[in-house]
Structures are given as structure tokens and as C-alpha cells.
């Protein structure tokens, strides 16, 4: 299935050097927000939008299902990639959207919610949210096929 990628019109790439974490220096000390925190906040924000079925590509979700089963994976880091600077962050999301939803509208809502949550919770300015829709979810996808024999 062809991907649809949409990008926000904000300036690209955080101005601060990319590293493992973002920092805010004050005279009383430094506050650092790890990339994992921004990743999870972005994931939670994306899941909050109606029409989003899952995050991550097919391979990532399959691998994630296995790693979660053995207790080493976390669904909330799937399909999210972040680049975090001292004051800014850029986010790449891979989504699976419910069939029938407007992909542009869902993408826009996801982008807005991710920006709102990261700016509110992490205090970082979000420079861009790139959304890749790589699959659609159909209502019957989760229903297991009936057994052919009793």
C-alpha cells in the first residue's frame, strides 16, 4: 500500500544539536528530558486521536508483538522516531488508520495533538511532525477466522 506522507510547515530540524536528551539550564540546575519520554508522549498523543488504529509499520508491529510477549518491548515506542534538541523536537510518526476515516484530517489532528502534548508536557517547541500512513485497518481484520474443523 502506498504511503501518504504529510509534513508540517514549521521550520525543519531542531536548532540545538541532536543528542540523547534535551536540557534546560537554570541557575538551580538542569532539566533533561530523555528521548524516550518525548517518544512516549508523542505516541500517547497520536493514540488519543480518533481514527488512529495503531502506530508502526507491519514489520515493527509484528516484531513488537513478539518483544512485548517476552516482556522486553513497549508498544508506545513503536512507529515513533524523535529528534530532540535543547529546546526543540522533531517527530516522525508511522500510522495505521481506520478504513473510512479521512487520512488528511486524521493526520492533521494527530499533528496538532502531538504538538500540543509535547509542548505542554515537555516544554519543547515542536518544529515538525511528519506523518506516514502506511496501512489501513478494516473492521474485520481482528476477527479470527473460524476453525475449519470442530
Amino acid at each position, binding site marked *: 500500500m502506498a504511503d501518504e506522507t504529510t509534513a508540517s510547515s514549521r521550520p525543519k530540524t531542531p536548532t540545538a544539536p541532536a543528542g540523547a536528551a534535551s536540557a534546560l539550564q537554570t541557575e*538551580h540546575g538542569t*532539566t*533533561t528530558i530523555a528521548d524516550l519520554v518525548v517518544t512516549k508522549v508523542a505516541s500517547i498523543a497520536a493514540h488519543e486521536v480518533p481514527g488512529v488504529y495503531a502506530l508502526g509499520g507491519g514489520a515493527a508491529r509484528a516484531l513488537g508483538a513478539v518483544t512485548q510477549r517476552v516482556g522486553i518491548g513497549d508498544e508506545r515506542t513503536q512507529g515513533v522516531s524523535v529528534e530532540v534538541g535543547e529546546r526543540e523536537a522533531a517527530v516522525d510518526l508511522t500510522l495505521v488508520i481506520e478504513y473510512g476515516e479521512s487520512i488528511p484530517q486524521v493526520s492533521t489532528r494527530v499533528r496538532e495533538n502531538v504538538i500540543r502534548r509535547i509542548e505542554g508536557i515537555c516544554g519543547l517547541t515542536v518544529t515538525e511532525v511528519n506523518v506516514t500512513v502506511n496501512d489501513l485497518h478494516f473492521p474485520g481484520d481482528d476477527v479470527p477466522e473460524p476453525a475449519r474443523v470442530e
Partner: protein
Amino acid sequence: MVEGTSEQAAGATLPALAASKRVELARLALTQALSVDAVLHATAGPLGTRSTLDGRERLGGVTAAALSDGRYGVTLHLVVHVVPLRPLAHRIRARIERGAARAGLENALGPIDIVFEDVADLPGRGV
């Protein structure tokens, strides 16, 4: 003399030494940070290196290091609920500074660095 030496070696009769100022500050910072709402726990990292040894006890998720001005800088590695993080950092610092003042350690307390290592959902908020 010989007996005394063997007792000292065993550590059986020696009174416990008071914790150093560095360890006192680490313990205070950890205790105060964990008492703040939305702070779940501190994390020592996968290798357990982000910790401070207090005798045989390990204070995980906090380190304290001497600064050139005689104070000790404290670093906390925390896992917290999903709440606004910068205000939370301010609340944690204020709590630690108040605790240090009560303990008479305010002059030894240097900058408090806070690293938010991970977040966990608020109860009832599914993803």
C-alpha cells in the same frame, strides 16, 4: 590488641560512621523527590551506575558529586507520570531545597540536575 584488631576487622563493635555530606545530600534529594506527586521512582539505569553507595545500601537513581566551590551537585534520574515536566522539575527542586534547609545542608547543596528518564501513564489512562 590482637583482639581489638580482629574486632575492628569484623566491624562488630565499631559504631557506624556518620554518612558523608555527599551521601546525606543524595539521600535527602532522593527522599524529597520521591515525595513529590507524579514522581513514580528513581532509576539507576541498566547497569546500576546512577546510584550512590551509603555503606551497604545503594541509593538508586541519584548521584552527588563535589564541586570546586565546596558544594555538591546532585543529579536525579526519575520515572514520572505524564504531567508537564518543567513545572514538575521546579517543584522537585523546591522540595529538595526546603529539605536541605531544614537539615542544615543548604550551604552544601549545589545545582540539582533532573533527568526525566521515562514516563508512565496516569492510572486509568490507557494508550
